[in-house]
């Protein structure tokens, strides 16, 4: 290649292509031609044909491989993104559901809804009072039983 003079014009390139197809080029000239076809900006029917015959298939295969690799990477990224989106959606829904079912303060009295926090809390206090009275009755009973036993032992 070092013996080969760089091609300076489109016409010169087309002549070299013609010589290539006639089988009259040297190994160095063929190498230079390949290099020129890959890098030069010129375009004509002969140049484009030569490009197809000499380099297109290789370049095209490499491009396909690159696109395939890019495609599988893209698919992987989409898969990961979809997984993350589903995890966030399910997690979000669970949190939302828990939050929705978290702050409730309501009472239903004879089919009527009571939503005032104060009223509901007063009803709870009333519930607890009733339980307390019953528990006290039980304690009273136990202590009177204890007193009766003590008296009996005296």
């Amino acid at each position, binding site marked *: 290649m070092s013996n080969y003079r760089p091609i300076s014009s489109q016409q010169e390139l087309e002549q070299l292509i013609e010589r290539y197809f006639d089988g009259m080029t040297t190994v160095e000239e063929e190498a230079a031609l390949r290099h020129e076809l890959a890098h030069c900006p010129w375009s004509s029917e002969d140049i484009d044909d030569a490009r197809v015959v000499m380099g297109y298939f290789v370049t095209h295969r490499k491009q396909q491989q690159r696109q395939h690799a890019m495609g599988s990477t893209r698919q992987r990224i989409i898969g990961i993104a979809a997984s993350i989106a589903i995890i966030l959606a399910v997690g979000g829904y669970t949190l939302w*559901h828990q939050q929705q079912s978290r*702050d409730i303060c309501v*009472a239903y009295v*004879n089919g009527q809804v009571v939503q005032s926090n104060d009223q509901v809390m007063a009803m709870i206090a009333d519930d607890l009072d009733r339980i307390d009275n019953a*528990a006290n009755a039980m304690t009273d009973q136990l202590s009177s039983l204890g007193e009766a036993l003590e008296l009996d032992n005296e």
Partner: protein
Amino acid sequence: MKRFTIIILTCLLTAMAAMAQKGLNINRLFDGRYKKAPGATEIIVTGSQACEIGLDVYHSVSVTDKTQAEIIENLVVKDGTKAMDKEVEYRHGQLYYGFYTMPKQRSSNRYIFFLNQNLARKSPKNVVTLIYMEGRASADKIKKLIRK
């Protein structure tokens, strides 16, 4: 794809576990049947209001219907067999008062109170009350709460 399916299944199972039932017989009574029933009172308090009384969940039902009272008593007694600790009083062969400490669930203490005021000696009333409480509060704290 396999990994993707596993992730989805894990998420669904986690969500289902988070919303799982509490596994008590009395939960059947909290299906909303008393919300519109005449002579019944149902109270549901969770979240910040429940926190004010040291709980995560407060759910109670009071009924005047004797048939319902029997159903409630039966379910409470059934749950009572699994209680870790209990204080009960029977009158005339019927449960009058019950305080049950149920096994913990997800580090939450669970308590069931039952009171049949029909069996009260002083001024009996035609009311049966069931209370379910859930939270980190200990049994002593719950008793203190009742005696406030």
